[in-house]
């Protein structure tokens, strides 16, 4: 089955759909006590029956609001409509028209704040489980033999060459789209493996790596060339790519990978990790298999994770799986203000991660160079801040100590200056992110950017959307009036 441009048009008249009045189909999950001991996937995915039942709940609204909730405007009504008709291949084609990585997004997108929040049923009770249907279709597609898979059609060769920096969601989406336009595409990735955060950050138990690799494999099938072990800004500069290596345009999707620390005493003690280092060792380097593999990881017995986002949840749940007896999540606001997805918070609690809310570390304690605990301030919630969340304020004289042998800082990340430093004529924001217009064009002609490096840490789907939009703008720029 191939993806042609007319797949987005609605299917011919079918008998009127009568939505099923059944409750939202729950997601089958592995037992919390068992799954917290290994790295296998937590959620099992719908069966075909479950997927059909869930799809049948969709009202097939005349004016579907869910689509506006999707950052890349997937035609949700149509793909669910195709599922109701039992034409899964057609459903996948609709999905892939907007989203090249449905098996990934179906697992990691915050649908509860996006499409599902806008579902008409959400106002009356429970929305259609759009994300789970997306995942089911993504997995259906991946399970097909290659000839059965929905491989986008590659356009006629344009003779133009584009370099894509970074193989995270932004780079992958951009590369796929550029190939569809017929441009030759080479992805340069600094690590030894592709996928960006999907590979080094998000753990196996939430997003199995074979899924990411299968999606990357599809791009290779489309003729995208992938070169790992190239740090753009070190091995080649952007100018060298364009002047010496023969690329006509460059897309920069290098993410925002520089970890932040708190700047408190004791932060460089042994046993203090950035979440990035901890997750990279565990995921990318598979340190959980040490000494079968060569990368070690310090397996703490009492682990404190500082932060309240998805990254903090991933680090806490990974620590648990590495054998920690106790894992604390230390967050300066309350569980309600946590930026992490509700589902992740819930899974972490089920697996025994203990939440220590309203406290903020002021010092890491140590002995002989190793962590022994943290001193934290008690906080309370004050007036709402710029983000609209109530700002935590320190309660004087109420600090206390948490005993632990490992501290993981999951405080967010910033832009890495390595690439911009060697591209002085590309405009940056005050905080070091690349300045790009809504189509990804930077101040440097022929150079486009998208994903976390433009927006700061955001989401997989936003990064993909940016990559895809930039590809369209790059195509126009490359082809000029030729199209």
């Amino acid at each position: 089955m191939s993806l042609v441009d007319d797949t987005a048009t609605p299917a011919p008249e079918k008998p009127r759909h009568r939505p099923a009045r059944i409750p939202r189909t729950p997601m089958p999950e592995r037992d919390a006590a068992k799954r917290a001991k290994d790295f296998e996937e937590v959620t099992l995915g719908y069966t075909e029956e479950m997927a059909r039942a869930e799809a049948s709940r969709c009202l097939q609204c005349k004016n579907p609001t869910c689509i506006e909730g999707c950052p890349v405007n997937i035609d949700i009504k149509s793909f669910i409509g195709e599922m109701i008709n039992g034409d899964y291949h057609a459903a996948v084609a609709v999905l892939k028209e907007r989203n090249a990585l449905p098996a990934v997004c179906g697992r990691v997108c915050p649908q509860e704040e996006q499409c599902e929040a806008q579902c008409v049923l959400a106002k009356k009770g429970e929305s259609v489980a759009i994300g789970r249907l997306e995942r089911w279709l993504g997995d259906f597609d991946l399970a097909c033999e290659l000839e059965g898979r929905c491989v986008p059609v590659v356009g006629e060769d344009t003779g133009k060459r584009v370099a894509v920096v970074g193989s995270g969601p932004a780079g992958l989406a951009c590369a796929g789209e550029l190939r569809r336009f017929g441009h030759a595409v080479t992805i340069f990735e600094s690590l030894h493996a592709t996928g960006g955060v999907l590979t080094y950050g998000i753990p196996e138990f939430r997003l199995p790596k074979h899924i990411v690799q299968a999606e990357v494999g599809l791009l290779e099938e489309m003729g995208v060339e992938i070169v790992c072990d190239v740090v753009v800004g070190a091995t080649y500069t952007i100018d060298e790519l364009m002047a010496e290596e023969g690329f006509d345009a460059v897309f920069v999707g290098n993410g925002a990978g520089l970890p932040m620390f708190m700047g408190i005493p004791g932060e460089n003690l042994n046993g203090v990790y950035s979440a990035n280092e901890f997750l990279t060792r565990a995921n990318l380097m598979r340190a959980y298999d040490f000494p079968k593999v060569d990368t070690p990881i310090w397996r703490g017995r009492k682990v404190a994770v500082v932060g309240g986002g998805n990254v903090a949840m991933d680090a806490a749940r990974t620590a648990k799986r590495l054998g920690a007896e106790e894992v604390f999540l230390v967050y300066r606001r309350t569980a309600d203000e946590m930026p992490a997805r509700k589902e992740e918070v819930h899974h972490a609690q089920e697996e025994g991660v203990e939440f220590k809310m309203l406290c903020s570390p002021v010092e890491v304690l140590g002995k002989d160079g190793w962590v022994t605990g943290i001193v934290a301030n008690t906080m309370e919630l004050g007036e709402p801040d710029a983000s609209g969340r109530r700002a935590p304020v320190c309660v004087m004289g109420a600090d206390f100590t948490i005993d632990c042998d490992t501290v993981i800082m999951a405080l967010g990340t910033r832009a890495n200056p390595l690439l911009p430093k060697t591209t002085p004529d590309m405009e940056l924001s005050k905080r070091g992110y690349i300045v790009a217009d809504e189509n990804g064009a930077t101040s440097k002609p022929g150079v486009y950017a998208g994903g976390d490096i433009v927006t700061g840490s955001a989401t997989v789907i936003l990064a993909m959307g940016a990559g895809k939009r930039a590809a369209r703008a790059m195509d126009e720029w490359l082809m000029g009036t030729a199209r």
Partner: protein
Amino acid sequence: MFPIVHARQLSDAVFEMGVHAPAIAKKAKAGQFLMLRIDEDGERIPLTFSDWSAEEGWIRFIFMRVGKTTHKLSNLGVGDSLADVVGPLGVPTHVEDMGRVVVVGGGVGTAVAYPVARAMCAAGAEVTVIVGARNADLVILEDEFRALPLKELIVTTDDGSAGRKDLVTAPLKELCEAGAVDHAMAIGPVIMMKFCAATTREYKVPTVVSLNPIMVDGTGMCGACRCTVDGETKFGCVDGPDFDGHAVDFEELMSRQRVYSDDERLADAEYDRECRCHS
């Protein structure tokens, strides 16, 4: 894959290796390093360039067999390949005619000192090199240094089996005392760099050291390589590896280098057993 094009044992535990990597060779500068991974199960380790040829497309590094990865590496030779080689990483050593320069190399750090000394000579500086090792067998690259237009090459060994029976700090102190040093650079074991910096501090001779913290990615992504310099946290891989020796917290660096020493011993012992089983 990166084919190994050169392999030479320099002493009992020290090896030199060359890899075909034209893109990296074209950009390499003195003081920069690469990250390598031997195979799919391998860890990523940093190694500083000891030499390179942009024309012939190769890079070289020198390593000591200390743990499983360097042990595995020492068992490879021409015809084998490395899964991954990335670079050149880190800020190059600042090279200009700084007048009378002393470059101190200790142990395998001598391998890093060589391209630095060569670049300093080329920039017109008057260069003295002090090479230190435990014994004569561990003195490396002596011929290479002798081929450079140095002012002087001073070799020291702990047991006197080659050159002076002294620590590198002894000749360094004499040169400082004589007022014959405008700039010093020390590359070697942390303890040596610490004492070199302590020696030159007295004479207010600016001293650069090349740090070797534990790294994972080598591009600023993880913070494994955190060092404290002048009371501030720096990332060794992107802010360094060169830092002001008078501002580095060497104690912290030594402590941080030991995080995985138990793991490393375990892994190497297992690897050793495996090797024995196979042979």
